[in-house]
């Protein structure tokens, strides 16, 4: 099966934990410059899907295509090498380090010349590139030399997203980027996600907040009990339809409606769990 131009495409991905089928028959794709919302109830398999894409879990069945080529993702390093970056909900920032140190954590630049022999850090260039990156993303933080622990949740989230971009990824997975944020901070983070789209990245956003999802995504992919329960184009879709897909409530006549549910053969909403 081809990947029809998608940046990242999953075909028939299944993941079991012992007798429990966490994911079944997942066809999922992300295109360049597209933000896909991944929604579903607790335990629907959203995190499992993201962890499968980012290489933490290995799928039991199914194929991956990256830029049209079949690939295997056997570990987080494989995903990183392909250009898939993940920002987890806990952000994994070091609160005691400043923004520059966090952005370059694990990929520090080493000073040129004899100082490099001691693995001396090239602070000037790192700070410069930090300014560049944060300016491009219009991230507003008090200072790149401020400790991350001193910052608001929205600023920390933006730093975490910015860090994921240093590796020049093509796909960015965001796990609940707006959870626990205030209104203004949520708006900042949503703006940042839109700028990722402008940069031509494929973005996958896990969220519980449908208002945020409708605000920022182009397409909404609904999971229910580990199976695909709908794939909606945001234009022409109502929150009620998405909620119905999430909860499994029947709603009639969607098959014939224009673009509400993409009926491509398998795993649509009305099927329900097998």
């Amino acid at each position, binding site marked *: 099966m081809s990947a029809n131009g998608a940046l990242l495409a999953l075909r028939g991905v299944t993941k079991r934990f012992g007798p429990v089928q966490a994911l079944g028959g997942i066809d999922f794709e992300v295109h360049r410059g597209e933000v896909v919302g991944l929604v579903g109830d607790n335990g629907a398999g959203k995190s499992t899907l993201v962890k499968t894409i980012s290489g933490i879990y290995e799928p039991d069945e199914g194929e991956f295509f990256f830029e049209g080529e079949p690939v295997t993702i056997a570990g987080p390093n494989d995903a990183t090498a392909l250009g898939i970056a993940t920002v987890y909900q806990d*952000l994994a920032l070091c609160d005691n*380090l400043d923004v520059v140190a966090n952005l370059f954590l694990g990929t520090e630049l080493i000073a040129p010349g004899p100082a490099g022999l001691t693995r001396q850090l090239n602070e000037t260039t790192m700070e410069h*590139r930090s*300014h560049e990156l944060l300016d491009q993303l219009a991230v507003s933080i008090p200072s790149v030399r401020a400790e991350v622990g*001193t910052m608001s949740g929205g600023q920390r989230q933006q730093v975490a997203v910015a860090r994921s971009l240093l590796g020049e990824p093509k796909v960015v997975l965001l796990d609940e980027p707006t959870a626990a944020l205030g209104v203004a901070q949520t708006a900042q983070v949503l703006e940042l996600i839109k700028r990722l789209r402008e940069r031509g990245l494929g973005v996958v956003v896990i969220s519980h907040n449908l208002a945020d999802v409708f605000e920022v995504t182009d397409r909404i992919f609904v999971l229910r009990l580990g199976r695909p329960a709908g794939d909606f184009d945001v234009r022409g879709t109502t929150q009620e339809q998405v909620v119905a897909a999430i909860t499994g409530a029947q709603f009639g006549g969607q098959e014939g409606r224009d673009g509400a549910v993409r009926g491509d053969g398998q795993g649509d909403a009305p099927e329900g769990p097998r």
Partner: protein
Amino acid sequence: MSADPQAAAPAAGRLASERRGGGLVRRFAQGDLASLRVVVGLAVIWIVFQIQNDRFLSAVNLTNLMLQITATGLISVGVVYVLLLGEIDLSVGAVSGLAAAVMAVFNVKHGWSPYLAVVAGVLTGTAIGLVQGALFTRFGIPSFVVTLAGLLAWQGALLYVLGETGTINLTNPKLTGLANTFYAPDVGWIMALVVIGAYAAGTLGAWRHRLSAGLAHQQVGGMVVRLAVVAVAVLAVVAILNSDRGVPLAVLILIAFVAGMQYVASRTRFGRHVFAVGGNAEAARRAGIRVEHIRVAVFTIAGSMAAIGGILAASRLLAVNQSSGGSDLLLLAIAGPVIAGTSLFGGRGSVWSALLGALVIGSISNGMDLLALESSVKFMVTGAVLLAAVIIDAIARRQRQAAGRV
């Protein structure tokens, strides 16, 4: 995102006005300036003791004070690294004694050259640190337990190595010279100028580098003041030491290790990773840092620095005996950095706290000796100072939180 500094000059321009620092009073209160707080505390301690006994600030006594703190200070350098990880090493006292004993046995009983004997002693500490670090990471035993077991085991090893005599006197002039060599005044002045010159060159170099890269940089006035303060301090120390016996080799060794290890901690990739692991080990792991390697390396550093401190202590005592590395040495070596602002919880601190903390504790101990106080009083006072320092640290942390900082 090119590495070319010119490429984003406008980007940096937005932040060029951004001052580094600012809000001196607020930062002081929130504990960002722990070193300054300690310097103020040290000044108070010195003034109090000077009022009680006017020999306290004499050149002879200050030189003695410097010699008294070298062993503890060197051990504390390694302890700082362990504290930065948020771990603890309770074996450093025992390791210092054992390493000194190994050195003494090889030199005195087996006739090894002093250089080889010192290397053997240091490697003893290195190997012990490596083993303890490996046990800690491999089996996930808390470092507190691993090194507590080490404390007991290495004390036993010390008794075993010393054998029946229980004491080995050091007579080799190279070994005794470590703690008993003083440089002529001229040499001292030249060293002072070299240190000041190196510091000025480093500061100016970094400043020019940031300036040319269009990054926020220090105001020239502030930099000149800082240079002047350092220059005056260095010259004053050398002047005091010169008016007694001269600059001691032991003090040079201590300062060289403190400065070198501070460089490693604050300027190198390894140091950055130590701070990262101490701040959030899981984040460090996900960033691709090999957390286990960092931990083992840090315990190896602690063991090595303990050995070096033990060797200096033996040189000063002119002997190694059954109580070498025992008594309150361990607790003082840990208390020093904590008093001087290195957090017990990991991720915050500097190697300078090893020197400053040793100075604070050494000053209290030395001053109370001059006042001929009982050791019972000394212990209680030192304990109270440590408690006060930790309370100040806790208050500072709470104020950081109150100011909306995690």
